[in-house]
C-alpha cells in the first residue's frame, strides 16, 4: 500500500467568480521511504501540491489517500493530529517563533502531541543534535544565520519523528554553501532514518539529491522519472 496516492487531483481557486485552476488532474503514488523532488517553473502548482499532500489545504477535486484512507474522511482534528504526528514541514522562510529560543522552537510540535512532558527535553535535544546545533540551544532566531535557522526548522520538523518531511524550497533563502549543508541533513534523515522526503525546488543542485523527480507544468505532470541520486549513487528501489 502506498503511503500517499492521488487520483485525478484538482485544485481551483475561486476569487470573486474568477476561477483559477492550479492543479488539473494529477495522479501518482508515493511509497514509504521515497525521496521525491517536485520541480517546475513558478506557477506550475508545485507549492499547492505540497500543501495538499501536507494536509494544509483540501483539494477541490479528485481523491487523496493518505495511509490508505481518503483524506476527505478525516475530521479537522484528525488532520491536525496527522500533521502533528506523521508530517514535518520545512518552509522556505523558516517560520521560527521570534524571541523564542532554539530549544523552545523545536519543542513546539510536542506541545500539541500529547507526549509526556518529561520526554520533551530529550526528544528536542536529539532532534537538535541531528542537525548539529547542540551548541545553539539557547540562541534566539535573530542570533542565527540563515542556514542555522533552517536547520532549527528541520529539527522542529523532525522532533515528533514523522513519516514524511515536506520541504518547500528549503534552500531558497540560503546561499549555496549553507544550502548544501541543509540538503545534506535532509539526505541523511532520508538515508539513515528512513524518512520519506518530498522536496520542492527549482534549483538543480538541490535536485541532485532526488531519487525521483516529478516535473509539473501548468498544473499537470510533465514527467515522473526515477533518477540516480547523483550524490550517493543510490537508485530508487521499489
Amino acid at each position, binding site marked *: 500500500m502506498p503511503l500517499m496516492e492521488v487520483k485525478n487531483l484538482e485544485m481551483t481557486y475561486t476569487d470573486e467568480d474568477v476561477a483559477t485552476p492550479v492543479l488539473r488532474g494529477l495522479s501518482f503514488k508515493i511509497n514509504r521511504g521515497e525521496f521525491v523532488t517536485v520541480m517546475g517553473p513558478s506557477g506550475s502548482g508545485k507549492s499547492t501540491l505540497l*500543501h495538499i499532500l*501536507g494536509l*494544509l*489545504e483540501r483539494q477541490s477535486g479528485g481523491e487523496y489517500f493518505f495511509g490508505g484512507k481518503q483524506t476527505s474522511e478525516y475530521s*479537522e*482534528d484528525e488532520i*491536525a*493530529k496527522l*500533521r*502533528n*504526528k506523521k508530517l514535518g*514541514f520545512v*518552509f522556505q522562510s523558516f*517560520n521560527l*517563533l*521570534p*524571541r*523564542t529560543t532554539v530549544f*523552545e522552537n523545536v519543542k*513546539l*510540535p510536542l*506541545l*500539541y*502531541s*500529547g507526549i509526556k*512532558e518529561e520526554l520533551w527535553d530529550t526528544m528536542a535535544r536529539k532532534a537538535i543534535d541531528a542537525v548539529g546545533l547542540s551548541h545553539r540551544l539557547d540562541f534566539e532566531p535573530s542570533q542565527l544565520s540563515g542556514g542555522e535557522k533552517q536547520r532549527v526548522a528541520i529539527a*522542529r520538523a523532525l522532533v*515528533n519523528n514523522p513519516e514524511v518531511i515536506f520541504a518547500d524550497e528549503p534552500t531558497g533563502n540560503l546561499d549555496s554553501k549553507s544550502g548544501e549543508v541543509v540538503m545534506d541533513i535532509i539526505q541523511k534523515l532520508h538515508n539513515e532514518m528512513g524518512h520519506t522526503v518530498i522536496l520542492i525546488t527549482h534549483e538543480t543542485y538541490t535536485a541532485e539529491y532526488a531519487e525521483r523527480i516529478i516535473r509539473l507544468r501548468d498544473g499537470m505532470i510533465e514527467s515522473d522519472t526515477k533518477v540516480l541520486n547523483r550524490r550517493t549513487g543510490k537508485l530508487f528501489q521499489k
Partner: protein
Amino acid sequence: MPFHHAARIALAGLKTNKTRSALTILGIIIGVTAIIMVVSLGQGAKDLILSQIEGLGARVIGIIPGRQPKGPTDVLATLTASLTERDFSALQRKENVPYAQDVIPVVFGSETAYYNGQTYRPTLFGGNESMADIYDSYPERGRAVSADDVRSAADVVILGWTVADTLAPGQDLLGDRIKIKGRNFLVIGIMPKKGGASFINFNESVFLPYTTAQKYIFGIKYFNRIIIRADSEAHVAVTVEDVKATLRELHGITDPDKDDFGIETQADLLKTVGTVLSTLTVFLAMVAAISLVVGGVGIMNIMLVSVTDRTREIGLRKALGATNRNILTQFLLEAIILTGIGGIVGILLGAGLSFAISLVISNVFGLAWDFTFPVGAAVLGILISTIVGLIFGLYPARKASHMSPIDALRHE
C-alpha cells in the same frame, strides 16, 4: 492539551509583546482601581459618618415638632410650634416617661454677636443644665449652663472657640460681656478648639440657657427639639412609646397618622444614613464598572490587531498540529490572563491609593478615617475583569482559530 501547557503558551505570547500587553490592560487596571477606590473610600466615609452618629449616644431620642412627611408627595406640615413648655414638663414626669434620665428642651437659630466693634454670626443653642453632658460640650475654661441659669433666664453664654477668637482675637473673653440683639451677655465659659467633623460645629456655636434664648433672642415660646436620654439602651424603645403616648394625650391625638411631632432615634438615623451611603457607593461603583467594559473593548481591539499580527504564528502552529481548539484556547487565555493581571494590579493600585488617601484624611484633616480593604469589591473586580476578558477575547480568538494554516503562512 493539558491546561498548564496552554497557559504557558499564552504567557509566552504575552511576554514576547510586553509593551503591548501592558498598554492593553491599562483600561482594565484603571477600571478596577476606580471600583476599589470608590468602595474603599465609600466604606471609610460611611464608617466615619456612622461613628459620628453613634457619638450622639445610643440612648438619645430626639423629638421634632410638626407633622412628619409620610412620603415624597406629602407636603411637610410646618406646624413647628407644637412642642411647648407643657410638653416638656409632662415628659419630665416619671409617671409619664419612667426611663427618661434627662429631658432637654432645645432652641436654636442664628443671631449676630457683637464685641468691641467685631461681629460674628454663630449658631445659638439654648438648652438646660444637661445639655453639656449630652452634646459633650463642656467648656474648657469657666462653667457650663446651670439649673439656676435656666430658672432665672440668666444672661450668660458659653462661646465656641472660633466665636471667641473672632470677636476678640488673642484676648480672653471669659468674664467679659458680648452683645446679642442689643442685650449684654456674660461670658461664663469658653469651649476648647474642636477638630473633626460633627453634626454640630462646636467652634462656631454659642450655648446658653433655653429660657434666655426663647425670651430675649428668638422671642418664641416653643422648642425646636426636645432631647430625651433614656437610662439604658434597652429602654430606648419603650421610652419612645412612652413619649408618643404622653404627647398624643396632651395634644388630643387619636390617629397616629395625625401626630404633630416626630421621633428620631440613633438606630433610625444609623439605618437611614447607612442605607443612603451604601446606595451611593454601589451606584458609584457601577459607574466605575462601566469603565471596565470600555477597557474590555480596548482588549478586543488590541487582540484583533494581535491576531492579524501573528497570523504567521497561528498558521505555523496549525501546520505543526495545533487544533482549532488549541488556538482558540491560546488566544482566549491570553485575553483572560491579561484582564486577570489587570484586575490584580487594579486591586493593588486601588487599595494603595485608598490607603494613601485615608492617611492624608486622618493625618491632615484629623478625622477618624479608617482604611478598609473591600474584599467583596476585590473579588468582584477580578471576576468582572476576567469575564470581560472572556467575552471580548472570544471574537478575536475565534477569528484566529478559524484561519486556514496555509492562508496564515502565506500572510506577509
